[in-house]
């Protein structure tokens, strides 16, 4: 009995380490590639030890198009998070205080809408934006990102909000505070951790989003994921630049992601339209 359970533990441990290797190996490979010269990149057998060079990083950061893409990605992600928060926080607050089928059906409708593949929204938005001259604008992309970020934030905040004690807001209500006063003065300070976590997750989704950015931008508001793909298409596949740029886009997503990993489940199970 005892030996069997040790064997099981060892087996699981081994599986975990192997899987950890499977996860890390390709990322490591990409990181190495970003430090190789083009000659080393295609060497056979592959070089694990070589003289690293930062040429690719200098090339990427000397590229004005890439710098513009960083700015665009940042503006669009932050803009969409701020706008989403303004819409989603009152909604999550209202839904938390509502009861009965109205609340249930609202939560359901929000979830259902998130489950629809992005391509369904993309075609009409393209037609509409073409007509309204919103193609290739920051605000155009910010608006589209609301489709996934508003439901994400509502669905993440709802359980967090439900977990804080209701006594304080009840007491303020009896003292004659209006719902708006309770939201701003009593509840908001209590859920600020949850708001931060959901903002970060929404930021990551915007930062990583590819499909909408690919179609709804042209030249001026290209975001990072699209800019990387452009290295692939136009510049004769410069793998050094592609891998260096990839490293740049991964790192913020990773760092922020690790910070909010505890809240991941709520965010992820509310679904993500990415394609």
């Amino acid at each position: 009995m005892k030996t069997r359970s040790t064997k099981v533990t060892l087996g699981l441990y081994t599986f975990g380490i192997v899987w950890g290797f499977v996860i890390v190996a390709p990322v490591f490979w990409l990181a190495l590639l970003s430090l190789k010269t083009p000659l080393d990149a295609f060497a056979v057998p592959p070089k694990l030890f070589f003289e690293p060079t930062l040429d690719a990083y200098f090339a990427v950061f000397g590229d004005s198009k890439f710098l513009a893409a960083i700015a665009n990605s940042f503006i669009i992600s932050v803009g969409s998070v701020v706008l989403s928060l303004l819409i989603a926080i009152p909604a999550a607050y209202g839904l938390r205080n509502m009861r009965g089928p109205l609340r249930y059906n609202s939560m359901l409708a929000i979830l259902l809408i998130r489950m629809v593949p992005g391509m369904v929204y993309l075609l009409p938005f393209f037609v509409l934006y073409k007509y309204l001259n919103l193609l290739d604008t920051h605000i155009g992309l910010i608006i589209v990102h609301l489709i996934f970020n508003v439901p994400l934030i509502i669905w993440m905040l709802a359980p967090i909000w439900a977990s804080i004690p209701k006594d304080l807001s009840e007491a303020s209500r009896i003292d004659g505070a209006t719902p708006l006063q309770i939201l701003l003065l009593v509840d908001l300070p209590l859920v600020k951790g949850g708001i931060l976590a959901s903002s970060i997750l929404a930021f990551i989704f915007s930062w990583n989003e590819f499909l909408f950015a690919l179609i709804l931008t042209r030249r001026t508001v290209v975001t990072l994921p699209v800019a990387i793909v452009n290295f692939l298409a136009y510049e004769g596949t410069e793998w050094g630049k592609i891998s260096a740029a990839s490293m740049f886009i991964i790192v913020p997503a990773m760092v922020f992601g690790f910070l909010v990993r505890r809240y991941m489940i709520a965010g992820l199970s509310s679904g993500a339209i990415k394609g």
Partner: protein
Amino acid sequence: MAAASMPDTMALVRLSYRRSNSGYKRFVIPAMFVIAVLTIVPILMTVALSMTSLSYLNTRPTAFIGMENYVELFRDQRFLNSLWQSAILIFGPLPFQLLFGFFLALTMNERLPGMGWLRLIFIIPMFFPPIVMGLMWKVMFTPQLGGINYYLSLIGIQGPLWLGEPFYALISICIAAIWGWTPFVAVMFYTAMQTFPKDLYEASRIDGATWSQQLRFVTLPLLRETALVVIVFRIMEALAIFPIIFVMTSGGPAGSTETANYYAYTAGFQFLKVGYASSIILTFLAMLFIILGPATRMLLRKVGAEGER
């Protein structure tokens, strides 16, 4: 008498709901309005577009053509192929994601030295931009550039031209999908496992159950509901591999990795036949909902109950 008073009670409950909700509705209405404008309106527009001949290439005026796009769709071999390929790319990686995810969750559940770090490593793909995932695997499968075929040759296996042959291109994308979304399955299972009552394991251990018996008779039955949730989400979101297909194969070679939503993209934004593309994506969406209908209803009831808390 009791039967007659029932509806009255219900009416009272409803009234009390209405009264207590009335002050909060105005907080929810703006969000509902925004969501409706951004989603329901486009969906209705897609339905309308799918019945037109809208194309940005031809100069003829756009006409209402009823169901013509849909009729053409089922004569379009490329569409039928894309459905088959969607099925492969949705259901191919799924069993592996479930199996590996399950054992990964069991591993995460163990208290072992270094497990904190290992858990961090496991969830890396969850924040990974899908586009970079695609680029990374394209690198790995490109001859010379990625080491895969070299290391396979060391153990005597002649690696195929991964992205150059239809069969292996599909396999390559499946591998990327397994890498990318197994952690999601694992974390869902792991979270569920932490809520399992400890005394059940305790009791079964005292009864002399072995580890595999515990797995079979305690863990797996408890995981059934979570597994359903995971499967529905994985199927609905499986086509989020669009960016991966986009960079790894662009739907090729010879259209062999083109999924339905990829074909909708090609038809809509490369051939610029927006009307036809709308009918493609709507037909696919309808099929998805029909397949997932019963499971989704069950899931929504469960999720709805969670939202109720």
